[in-house]
């Protein structure tokens, strides 16, 4: 690939990724500058994407981490172009909207303008991550951008950080999407272990149907479905409405939630090898359509209604994936475009309305068509698009849906009609609730920046209804990547009684029925919502987090805290481990004692003396006596060295013993009398436990020593070499020469320890107390 072409492909990604730091830097310099700079970058990234796509796209594939076969492999194919254009294009409009919305939002909370910088930084990080995600072909690279979107959304949802609800919502979104992202990683690693590559195109050629693919595919699908807020992992999305409205608009139409279906599209060549996986998608899609649709009809808060609508709409996309085939693949891509334009417009409408009136509930709103005619018209177009009325882009999305469902069978066709009717009903409810009816509240001239993005989006929805060609071509190109084969669709208006048209008609009738019969079913729908709230997955999430914290508290109370138990907690398991080791290794002839002769008598006597002294130490309660008993054991050992012909070791042992005993007694003077007294008066129960622990520790030390010593020592010991070499080092006494020469480094180290102890003593005692 020639350098200019590489540059062409990379430019959208680079611009999108540079946008966040650029806006942050500008914001640090002047808070006012963050918005224009960020918006400019979004526009640039959009143009670069469009240009590169128009020039034919391309790919960049270079080694990233060769040790693990990770590749920096990005491509601007149809799927990437679609999502990158959405992320940058919708991003641009949302940023324009934010430039006016955010100062108002910050004004409500008396927050400084500089807070906005943070907002733009995270919004643009989101955009960059989405572009990267759209282009990534390597599963690990994809995972990286995937989590980057999770980070960005986390901060955006928690933008009102003083609000506990916003923080909890952000944490929930992060936990649901972040933890499931790990499943994506596991799925990728399973595929890698089987096929030796992380590249999606390469995997598409290699995979074979089977349990391995099912497992990996399912893991990846769960990650995608959680991100796209599909049942039963949908509950984080309505909560995420705690975010400022532009964030919600972006999150729902072009970023976070769209990322899930983007991933499904990206790995679809693998998924479609497995019937089970497609059927799973089908079921999840249908469930989400139903749950989202029904709950959307019961919501009163504008943004909540839209949130459940999103769940239901992405349910359609997942349903289309599940149906599979050419129509399913292209239909899914087309659906995402149509939904993004309409949904973004509706969210921005909700934001503008709430900003103007101070109300965010349908029950408190109405009649705004007069004060806000332009907004009403634009938003009406968008609602019509969502409801799939003719002359909007939405009509074609449903046409594709019906076509794909029909191909599968009448049952699925029926489900599609039902779902579409639900959509029509809540789209009407949203728009009519705000703009029709009695005027409730005053609304003046809204700022242009709050209206024009909605108008632009509404215009696009209408444009798509009149001239569907560009959108269809884009969806086709994306569909070819998803389907991994040539695909074509010809959406058009046909004035005949073909099944798709009949289904659309049925939808309109059914939708109208739903709208007018609202009083009949609304109670039942609210009941469903109430039950869902009581036993649904959100409840499960909350109670498991609570339970986790409670369980954690409980085991924390069981942790040992006092020093004695801390030491015991090491000795006991260590003893058990050694015992276990001895039990499971063959022990024939290992633990044997040699013959005991007369020359061993002093040794044995000394050992008896040491044993007696040690036993005596368990009987005394006075600390000084204890010290003296211990040191007497030390002296006996020193005497042993003298017997064994090591006078210099004996000399050092005696000297050290003397010094240590004196220092020990001196230390006792530092400990307050009461503490010592308390220790001496410990209840018998504790003393007994002490004895048990000592016995285990002693037994374990004995086992180690015996196990070692009963093996004959190795034949050519270093010691002999050392003795032979002593004269070489100009010395007669081998111990000295070992200390000063052969192992001088060890000696140097040991005297350093001594120096350190002095430093420590001086440091710690300078305060005058040993606390």
């Amino acid at each position, binding site marked *: 690939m020639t350098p200019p072409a590489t540059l062409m492909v990379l430019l959208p990604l680079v611009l999108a990724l540079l946008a966040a730091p650029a806006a942050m830097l500008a914001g640090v310099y002047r808070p006012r500058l963050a918005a224009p700079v960020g918006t400019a970058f979004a526009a640039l990234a959009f143009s670069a994407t469009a240009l590169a796509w128009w020039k034919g796209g391309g790919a960049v594939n270079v080694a990233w981490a060769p*040790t693990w076969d990770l590749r920096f492999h990005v491509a601007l194919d149809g799927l990437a172009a679609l999502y990158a254009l959405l992320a940058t294009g919708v991003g641009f409009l949302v940023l324009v909207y934010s430039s006016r919305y955010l100062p108002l939002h910050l004004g409500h909370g008396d927050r400084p303008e500089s807070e906005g910088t943070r907002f733009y930084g995270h919004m643009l990080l989101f955009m960059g991550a989405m572009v990267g995600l759209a282009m990534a072909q390597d599963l690990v690279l994809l995972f990286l951008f995937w*989590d*980057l979107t999770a980070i960005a959304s986390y901060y955006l949802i928690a933008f009102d950080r003083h609000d506990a609800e916003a923080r909890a919502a952000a944490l929930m979104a*992060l936990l649901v999407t972040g933890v499931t992202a790990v499943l994506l990683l596991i799925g990728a690693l399973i595929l890698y272990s089987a096929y030796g590559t992380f590249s999606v195109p390469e995997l598409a050629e290699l995979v074979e149907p089977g349990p391995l693919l099912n497992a990996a595919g399912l893991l990846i699908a769960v990650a995608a479905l959680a991100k796209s807020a599909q049942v039963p992992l949908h509950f984080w999305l309505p909560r995420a409405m705690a975010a400022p409205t532009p964030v919600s608009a972006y999150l729902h139409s072009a970023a976070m939630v769209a990322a899930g279906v983007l991933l499904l599209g990206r790995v679809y060549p693998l998924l479609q090898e497995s019937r089970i996986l497609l059927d799973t998608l089908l079921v999840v899609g249908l469930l989400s359509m139903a749950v989202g649709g029904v709950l959307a009809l019961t919501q009163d808060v504008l943004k909540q209604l839209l949130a459940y609508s999103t769940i239901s709409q992405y349910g359609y996309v997942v349903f289309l994936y599940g149906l599979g085939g050419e129509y399913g693949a292209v239909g899914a891509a087309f659906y995402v475009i149509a939904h993004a334009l309409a949904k973004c417009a509706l969210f921005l409408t909700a934001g503008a309305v709430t900003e103007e009136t101070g109300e965010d509930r349908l029950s408190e709103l109405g009649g705004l068509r007069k004060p806000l005619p332009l907004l009403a018209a634009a938003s009406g177009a968008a609602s019509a698009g969502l409801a799939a009325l003719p002359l909007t882009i939405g009509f074609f999305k449903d046409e594709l849906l019906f076509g794909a469902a029909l191909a599968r069978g009448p049952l699925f066709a029926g489900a599609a009609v039902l779902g579409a009717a639900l959509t029509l009903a809540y789209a009407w409810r949203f728009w009519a609730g705000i703009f029709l009816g009695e005027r409730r509240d005053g609304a003046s001239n809204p700022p242009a920046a709050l209206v024009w993005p909605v108008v632009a989006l509404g215009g696009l929805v209408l444009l798509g209804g009149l001239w569907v060609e560009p959108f269809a071509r884009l969806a086709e190109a994306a569909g070819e990547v998803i389907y991994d084969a040539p695909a074509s669709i010809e959406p058009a208006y046909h004035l005949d009684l073909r099944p798709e048209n009949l289904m659309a008609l049925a939808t309109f009738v059914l939708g109208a029925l739903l709208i007018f019969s609202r009083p009949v079913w609304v109670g039942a729908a609210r009941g469903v919502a109430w039950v869902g709230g009581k036993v649904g997955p959100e409840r499960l999430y909350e109670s498991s987090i609570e339970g*986790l914290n409670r369980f954690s508290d409980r085991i924390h109370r069981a942790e040992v805290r006092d020093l004695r138990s801390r030491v015991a907690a090491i000795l006991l398991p260590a003893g058990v481990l050694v015992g276990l080791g001895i039990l499971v290794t063959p022990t024939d002839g290992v633990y044997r004692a040699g013959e005991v002769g007369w020359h061993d008598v002093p040794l044995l006597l000394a050992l008896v003396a040491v044993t007696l002294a040690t036993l005596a130490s368990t009987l005394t309660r006075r600390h000084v006596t204890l010290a003296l008993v211990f040191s007497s054991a030390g002296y006996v050992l020193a005497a042993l060295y003298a017997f064994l012909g090591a006078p210099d070791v004996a000399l050092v042992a005696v000297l050290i013993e003397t010094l240590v005993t004196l220092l020990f007694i001196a230390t006792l003077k530092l400990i307050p009398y009461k503490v010592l007294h308390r220790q001496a008066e410990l209840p018998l129960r504790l003393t007994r436990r002490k004895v048990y622990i000592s016995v285990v520790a002693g037994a374990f030390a004995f086992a180690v020593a015996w*196990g*070692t010593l009963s*093996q004959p020592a190795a034949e050519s010991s270093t010691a002999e070499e050392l003795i032979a070499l002593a004269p070489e080092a100009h010395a007669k006494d081998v111990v000295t020469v070992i200390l000063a020469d052969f192992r001088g480094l060890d000696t140097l180290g040991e005297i*350093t320890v001594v120096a350190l102890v002095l430093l420590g003593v001086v440091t710690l005692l300078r305060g005058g107390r040993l606390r």
Partner: protein
Amino acid sequence: MTTLVILPAGIAWLLAAVIAPLDGRRPLWGWLAATGLGASLLAVVLLLVRVLREGPVEVVAGGWPEGVGITLRADVLGASFAAVSLAVVLVAFVHEVLLGVRSRTFPALVLFLAAGLSGLFLTGDIFNFYVFFEISMTASYILTGYREENSQVRAAFIFAVVNLVGSVMFLSGIAGLYHLTGSLDMEVVAGRIGQVELSSIIPIATVIFVAFSLKIGLFPFHFWLPAVYVGSHAPVAAILSGAVANIGSYGLLRFGADVLPDALSFGAPVVLVLGVVSIVYGAMQAVSRHDTSEVMAYSTIGQVGYILVALAVGGPVGYAAAVVYSIVNSLNKALVFLAAQLRGPLAGAAFAVGAFSIAGVPPAVGFVGKIALFKTSIEAGGLLETTALVVLIFAGSALSFVYAFQVYQRAFLAREYRNNKRPSPRATRVLAISLAAFVLAVGLWPEPLLVLGTESAALLLEGLR
């Protein structure tokens, strides 16, 4: 230039002895010590580059033949650990110098610690290892008591008593190895231990295992750890968890995989079980803790479990994962302990990078460690074992999300508005954010880290043949 092997320890050692009598509270001596640490780090990095190119470098102290004198040996495993540990010590120390050193002896102690650490990672002699180990541990005991508040002195006392038990165990293990093989040189011991009956090696190997497990704070030998990490001053906690704890993981790799491979493969099931229990236990404990340091202390207990699992699975993938994870964990813990106590702009961002890294969220380097572990468990063998390990590591990582972000929200996100505390000095925040940037950079380009892991694993497995 075989001198390079002794330089990292030598520079710090000599400078420590020079600085010890001086008043370390004066910035001049603080910066001199930091320069010394920097020089040591530079030497280690040069050494690392060299061993990567040309293989292990060795030199016998005193110019004696091998076996008589002490062999100093730098290989990629030791040099990697030395580099990351010294880097953590340097950053934590500079942090404290920027805050203002409060004790005369602090710089000297840190230098002694650095000397001990670089010495033990770069020696080829088991007793010499013990000596350097004692230097670093003694320096750590005293450092824990730094600032001399009651909680710190108590922490130092617990730390010293419990770890002295560990030292005694380790020493007896070394004595046992010497008795069995008649040598203190690691290579010779590894060569001769094959002829010794397993029943004699197992108790010794167990003792050594316990000693190192104690050092890294593996369940159930962890009871000292939370008290010590919570009690000590933040930069000291960063040093303890980011540098001193490396002794444990290095020791387990060196003594387990390199010197006593038979015992390790024999005990692998136990190591695996302990690792898994530690993962779950540490993470479970961390969930409900409120204090940032306490959460991170328990998190450490969980994270070392991963290292044990990788060690138990072994092989090129397992050993590489153990090395990679140890390094990642060092960086993470150093970052969170340093950032946790800071207040003001950038402090939250630095901590957040650490939290994301601990939870394994890219591009922070933690995800590299997570991938290494999942690769390891997929390599573990049977379907059942693989599935169980994958599920457990997944559960551990899910819990790490919960505790890392619960504490992040409490300590930073919720609090940033209320500026009730004075912001920390700008320089310390810049330092923390630089460390965070490094954590991100390694995550974005993990290749060097992976090479260190792979090369170390190759080295350890070479010993097996």
